[in-house]
């Protein structure tokens, strides 16, 4: 069964009305083409300033009916889990109450379940395979703009499945952001600290990341979409053009994408494919590419990791695949994917920095060390990977114990001081304190693999006393976790 637009709106109203401690209704500034109001939900637990954000958008393409309902269902699942102290279980996938608590305390979840209400209504009342919005295109007898071709960045370049013809189902519109629906997504990205984004589509069981207009490469940084003309209504003129992405970003897209794939597979065995968007077919002006491209076009903007999910398998025909008679199992897969993306967006250092120190000085310093130093060597990359792999499990432990959280904050503060002053040395007492903290975490985790990773950190820590911060970073850049000193 599928919810109507009115039912989705009602769910937003009821959830935000009944549970203001979790939900805030966010009326978006632009009504749809047919003047219907469009609202988002912000979900979080606890007060405080704006947090890292995850934006989940559903219903861009009208006929892909499952995802708006999956996003509302996800909000309800999170609420029930958090309020009742229970885990979320989808088949073989388990998202613990501690993980739910972490997500709701660390993040702002921005849920925009139904981006294209006019299209959804049209699907339910006139044409069940309608894709676009309901724009009346002047001078033609054809209606609709494909909202997922209407975003900025490389708009209006007719690479592959993108068209400047109003009668096409992949019509990009008369200009970038001509449509009120896409403007609403831009508003959310402009006004909030969105770090992770997913535009949730159907079907074909894919986790897509940029780029859609050209193959992705990590070698030639002069090949940027910003150097290409947009709005040409022609394909990219340069033969063999490949779009640049920094290696660290590509690795991040692939790593997080694979975790999403693994999570979905654990639900009931469906194997999604993680690949660049062009793997489906070439496109321009899509939401996922735009979300990521923004910080490249304007370096003042925050980087957002933009994904497109294509939920559900082929079920024998277009209509059945876009809106199967029973979407229950596909929605579970989709919810596992969205939850995993949200968890991957939590940054332990940032959360502790804000919670305990109420500032981002140390966070910025450590981010610089990670991105500009550690990420440049293989050994450094392995330290980043170890941190990424364990941070959420350990963060849940830290947040459950006020003393551990304070101690984490104190260690973060000390790390910041060492990084700020090139001449400052790591003291014996710094090492002792950090080792004691790691021991406590290892004891609490009760997980052999976590203990092993923490031992790797401890063993390198033991050698840092008396060294300046720059030297300690150089050690991490040369020696991967688990390597014995002096070994080759």
């Amino acid at each position, binding site marked *: *069964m599928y919810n*109507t637009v009115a039912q989705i709106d009602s769910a937003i109203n009821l959830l935000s009305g009944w*549970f203001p401690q979790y939900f805030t209704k966010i009326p978006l500034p632009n009504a749809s083409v047919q003047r219907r109001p469009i609202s988002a939900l912000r979900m979080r637990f606890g007060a405080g300033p704006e947090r890292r954000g995850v934006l989940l958008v559903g219903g861009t393409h009208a006929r892909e009916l499952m995802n708006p309902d999956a996003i509302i269902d996800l909000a309800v699942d999170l609420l029930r889990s958090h309020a009742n102290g229970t885990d979320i279980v989808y088949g073989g996938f388990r998202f613990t109450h501690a993980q739910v608590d972490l997500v709701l305390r660390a993040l702002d979840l921005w849920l925009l379940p139904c981006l294209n209400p006019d299209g959804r209504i049209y699907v339910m009342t006139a044409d069940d395979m309608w894709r676009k919005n309901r724009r009346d295109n002047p001078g033609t007898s*054809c209606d609709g703009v494909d909202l997922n071709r209407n975003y900025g960045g490389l708009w209006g370049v*007719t690479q592959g499945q993108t068209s400047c013809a109003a009668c096409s189902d992949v019509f990009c519109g008369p200009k970038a952001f001509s449509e009120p629906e896409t403007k609403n997504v831009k508003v959310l990205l402009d006004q909030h600290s969105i770090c992770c984004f997913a535009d949730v589509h159907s079907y074909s069981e894919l986790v897509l990341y940029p780029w859609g207009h050209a193959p992705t490469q990590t070698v030639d940084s002069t090949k940027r979409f910003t150097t290409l003309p947009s709005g040409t209504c022609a394909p990219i003129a340069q033969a063999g053009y490949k779009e640049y992405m920094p290696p660290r970003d590509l690795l991040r897209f692939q790593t997080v994408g694979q975790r999403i794939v693994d999570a979905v597979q654990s639900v009931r065995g469906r194997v999604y494919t993680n690949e660049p968007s062009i793997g489906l077919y070439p496109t321009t002006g899509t939401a996922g590419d735009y979300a990521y491209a923004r910080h490249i076009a304007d370096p003042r903007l925050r980087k957002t990791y933009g994904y497109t999910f294509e939920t559900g398998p082929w079920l024998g*025909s277009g209509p059945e*695949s876009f809106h199967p008679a029973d979407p229950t199992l596909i929605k579970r897969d989709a919810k596992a994917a969205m939850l995993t993306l949200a968890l991957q967006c939590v940054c332990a250092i940032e959360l502790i920095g804000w919670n305990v120190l109420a500032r981002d000085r140390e966070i910025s310093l450590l981010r610089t060390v990670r991105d500009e130093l550690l990420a440049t060597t293989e050994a450094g990359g392995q330290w980043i990977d170890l941190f990424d792999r364990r941070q959420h499990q350990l963060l849940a432990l830290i947040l459950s114990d006020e003393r551990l959280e304070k101690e984490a904050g104190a260690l973060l503060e000390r790390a910041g001081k060492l990084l700020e002053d090139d001449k400052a040395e790591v003291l014996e007492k710094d090492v002792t304190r950090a080792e004691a903290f790691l021991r406590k975490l290892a004891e609490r985790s009760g997980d052999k693999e976590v203990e092993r990773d923490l031992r790797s950190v401890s063993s390198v820590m033991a050698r840092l006393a008396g060294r300046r911060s720059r030297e300690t970073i150089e050690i991490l850049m040369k020696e991967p976790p688990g390597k014995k000193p002096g070994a080759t």
Partner: protein
Amino acid sequence: MKRDPKGNSDIRFEATVHAKGKAAASRVVANLDLDRIPDPKGHVRVLLTADDLAPLLEQGVEVRIVQAYPVKPLDPSLIEDDEAAKAKLEEQTRGIKREGRP
């Protein structure tokens, strides 16, 4: 594909398009601005109206119609009832303290 509520496109065809290579089929479909949908075997699958067929065939490709269906609203039996939707939300959130009123 021209799905025009004011026009005559009352039948939709689902088809796969074949040429000497997948790239060639993809190019033809892209050039004609057709509604391409994912295909489970990696073929080039499209949704077409009757008006789309002639220009497609003129490109020298092979078009295999796999299904035809009328343009129609979603099966009403797939649409949730308003009362049932609200009752489901009530049931799912039963026992959770409501701190506000809608």
